[in-house]
């Protein structure tokens, strides 16, 4: 085992230095702040001038937004069940791959306070079906994380493993550590795993074949993510339903539509050179994966879905789940604002259709979590107290659209969760997906928490605690 300390030449903040316009180092620019202030001012004037009309206009806009969002999501699901929604590598194709033809593959595992995961991680990565001499596995450990470093040092790591120590510096984020690792990556291809990940053994081979089949423009393959502890408690059951619907039913649809794909935080396979060309990850973005997915598309490259799964640990406690979701939504807000600094340039780079995809995928999904509580509140008020004046907000066509969204749209999303579990053959979880609305409440709570945190502490990285699951469920296999 070799231990490498990051040298001064490895600049983990390169993107923010060389392309500051694409970095979240400045979370909201002066121009954006001006637009926000003016918009709020106009809104306040409208409310003061004609509150009734403003409220009706707001309800109309929100209803149209919901309709568009629902139709879009269902269309993506429809796309995802088309034949070419992802790269499927068959067993015969894998068997034909000769070990000597395989390139060197870099695996990077950023770890921070993950002492309890080290053993399982080494075990999982050792099971990968890839020639050991062509593996370049870097454990990225923070300089001040003595526990994890001690745990690693206590183990006898296989030869392919090495440790890269990330020096203490701001910001303390995962993408910064990844950028350090990227500097030392030797492989032609590169993949990120989290400490608790258990990738399918043939995943790397599938990625190599996938890259050769996908064409030169595709520089990233996203694997599916799912959980190995879905039955630990209700939280993990609902989380599994959500992940199954997202990675199995939505992302493949985005891939078919050639839309921007917000990458999942782990199991993203990259062409290393191209990733370096893109200056790696944005160290200031708390969902660096989502941001990188957009930048890949803006640079004219593409991302495809790869039919292989990495099993993760589902966060099983609300106390940890909410900070994790807060970070994700905050990162989406960051990403949206970063890429909307120059909307016209974004249109030029993504095209009009790609721009609209970006608005819905990144913008609308965040906005929906913020808007939902208002409409839940209105609906509850009406159902409980039958306040007739509320109907004034919903003139005929708006009422029809609103009712459709409330009853058909929400049902469709619950049903998608069920289908996700069904496709994963998690038969017993199908029924639990019916409880998704309670899960949405938590999402909206996290959404508002993220919104406020974005202004108060934009770079705060609320670390998800892993290792709470003692034994993975047997149903994984």
């Amino acid at each position, binding site marked *: 085992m070799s231990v490498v300390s990051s040298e001064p030449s490895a600049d983990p903040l390169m993107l923010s230095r060389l392309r500051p316009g694409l970095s979240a180092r400045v979370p909201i620019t002066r121009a954006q702040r001006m637009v926000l202030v003016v918009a709020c001012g106009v809104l306040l004037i409208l409310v003061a001038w004609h509150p009734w009309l403003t409220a009706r206009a707001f309800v109309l806009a929100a209803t149209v937004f919901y309709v568009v969002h629902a139709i879009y999501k269902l269309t993506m699901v429809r796309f995802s069940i088309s034949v070419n929604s992802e790269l499927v590598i068959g067993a015969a194709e894998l068997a034909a791959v000769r070990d000597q033809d395989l390139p060197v593959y870099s695996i990077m595992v950023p770890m921070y306070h993950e002492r309890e995961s080290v053993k399982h991680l080494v075990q999982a990565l050792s099971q990968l079906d890839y020639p050991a001499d062509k593996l370049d596995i870097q454990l990225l450990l923070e300089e001040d994380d003595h526990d994890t470093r001690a745990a690693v040092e206590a183990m006898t790591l296989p030869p392919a493993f090495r440790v890269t120590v990330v020096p203490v510096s701001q910001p303390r984020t995962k993408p910064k550590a990844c950028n350090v690792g990227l500097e030392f990556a030797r492989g032609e291809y590169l993949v990120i795993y989290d400490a608790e990940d258990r990738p399918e053994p043939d995943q790397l081979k599938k990625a190599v074949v996938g890259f050769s089949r996908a064409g030169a423009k595709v520089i990233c393959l996203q694997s599916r993510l799912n959980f190995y502890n879905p039955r630990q408690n209700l939280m993990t059951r609902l989380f599994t339903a959500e992940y199954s619907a997202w990675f199995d039913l939505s992302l493949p649809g985005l891939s078919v539509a050639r839309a921007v794909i917000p990458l999942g935080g782990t199991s993203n396979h990259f062409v290393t050179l191209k990733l370096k060309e893109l200056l790696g990850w944005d160290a200031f973005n708390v969902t660096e994966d989502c941001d990188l997915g957009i930048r890949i598309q803006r640079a004219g490259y593409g991302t495809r879905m790869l039919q292989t799964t990495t099993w993760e640990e589902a966060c099983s406690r609300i106390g940890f789940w909410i900070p994790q979701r807060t970070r994700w939504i905050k990162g989406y807000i960051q990403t949206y604002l970063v890429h909307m600094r120059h909307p016209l340039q974004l249109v030029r780079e993504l095209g009009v259709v790609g721009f609209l995809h970006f608005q819905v995928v990144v913008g609308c999904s965040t906005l929906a979590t913020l808007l939902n509580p208002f409409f839940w509140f209105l609906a509850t008020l009406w159902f409980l107290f039958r306040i007739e004046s509320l109907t004034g907000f919903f003139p*005929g066509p708006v009422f*029809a659209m609103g009712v459709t969204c409330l009853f058909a749209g929400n049902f469709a999303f619950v*049903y998608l969760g069920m289908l996700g579990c069904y*496709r*994963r053959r998690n*038969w017993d979880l199908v029924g639990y997906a019916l409880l998704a609305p309670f899960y949405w409440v938590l999402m909206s709570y996290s959404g508002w928490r993220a919104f406020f945190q974005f202004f108060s502490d934009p770079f705060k990285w609320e670390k998800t605690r892993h290792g709470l699951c003692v034994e993975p469920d047997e149903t994984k*296999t």
Partner: protein
Amino acid sequence: MGYVWSLMKPKHEPISFSRWGLWLILAVVLLAAGLYLGREVGGEGLVREGICKELLAGHTPGRQGVVSSIWWGPFPTLAILPLAFLLPATLCLPACLVVSALFGAATLVLLEQSLRMWGTGRWRWWLILGLALNPAFLEHCWNGSSLPMVTCLLVLSLYSVTAWVQGRRLLDLIWFAFGSALLLGTGYEMSGWVIAAVCVVAIEEWRRPVSGMEKRAVLLVALLPLAYAVALWLLMCWLIMGDPLYAVRSLLVPGPGNALILPDLLWWCHAGLAALVGGLLVLALRRHDRGGVCLTVLGLALPGVAGLMAWYERLWDAAPLLLAFLPAAVLALGHGLAKREQSEDSSEAGSLARRPHRTAVILWVLLLLVVADVIPLALSARSVSLRPRVAEQATAGVVSQFSWLPELERHVRHRTPFAKVFVCGFESFALLQPDSSPVFLHALDFNFDKSKHDYYGQVLYLLIHRPERRNAMDSIHWKYRNIYVQGGKDTLYDSDWGDWRLFEHIQATAPR
């Protein structure tokens, strides 16, 4: 790994752009042909258009019209609603005509697609032509009726459930789940069939040698949309009508002696088809073809359900059920032919056996064209007098008011300028427009005491349609039995206006 792609990944794309193109072209052709032949909006179309207008105007009767009766299922109205909103008034094209044509075309396209995927070969075109030339089917595609929706959803459900039994693809199960849920929402007639279909899926699942959890998951996926549709309907009834069972009250209360209107010849014509499908069922049983058995059993369930409902006097018109039987029979025959062709291909004597098979197809097409088409044609000519008068008075472009409506208004205003006329039942939507005189009010849920309280001191009238066919199930007839003939406790006969009867609502208290 517990992940099976074949559950969802079809070998063929189920719907491609060419299918969409074919569908739209067929719909335009159907619509253009209907307009060219001068077909008019029928009674049902007028009512549903009226409900949509009220709904878009944000009026309570519109909401009541969507949910308050199982005899007027909500789905056809909701399907018309977006077009009723989007179609510019200057086009003078009722949305229900467009929707009927779209669903009629979708029926034919889905049939073609289903038969093609089963491998019926070029014979499928003849089979589809048999349905496409059926005057009764065409009439419904041209008059804004909800029957094309029924046939379309029926074909979707039948094909999906058969494909599910054969291939266990999740996508087929989903289509079946939504097809049957929407079918239930099209109207009362199909509810019996939906129950039969659910039973078939449950039995099929119960027989499979898989874990109980998997069976439960399959049933949940298959039945949830249906259960949700029912629950939603109950909820809406509770919210809008104040009684979750309001829509089915007409079934719970003894009916007003509604006679079934069904020409005898139509029974005979469909008895022939039923015998043919029965023969196919026997063949499927002998071949151990589970998909074929499922398809034919569910096909035969249509006339079966019609018979049962007629027996219990809960069917005002069997024609929709029996007309829906036509595409089901086409599907069953196409499936049977495909199976036959596959077995012939695998046998050496295939070419010899083809001859009787072709003869059978030709005989079938003749049967469809002669028996199922010509007889209904003759019948439709006979039954013109039975059609609601409202359809005769409506123009193709503009839904007009009855010519006697202004006269009726003058009549009631003659006594006092503050008179109100409660127009009872669903026919009121065909009669009144959102901008009609404020003298007239929709009354889907008329209550004597409430009206007395709300319009204290005013002269009130009730306008009630003759209780025939679907109108006999309006709430005014099951809440106040025999009101049309005998009047109510506080009503006084005033006059007759076409099929409508005007009563004066006597108030015990003198006006203030």
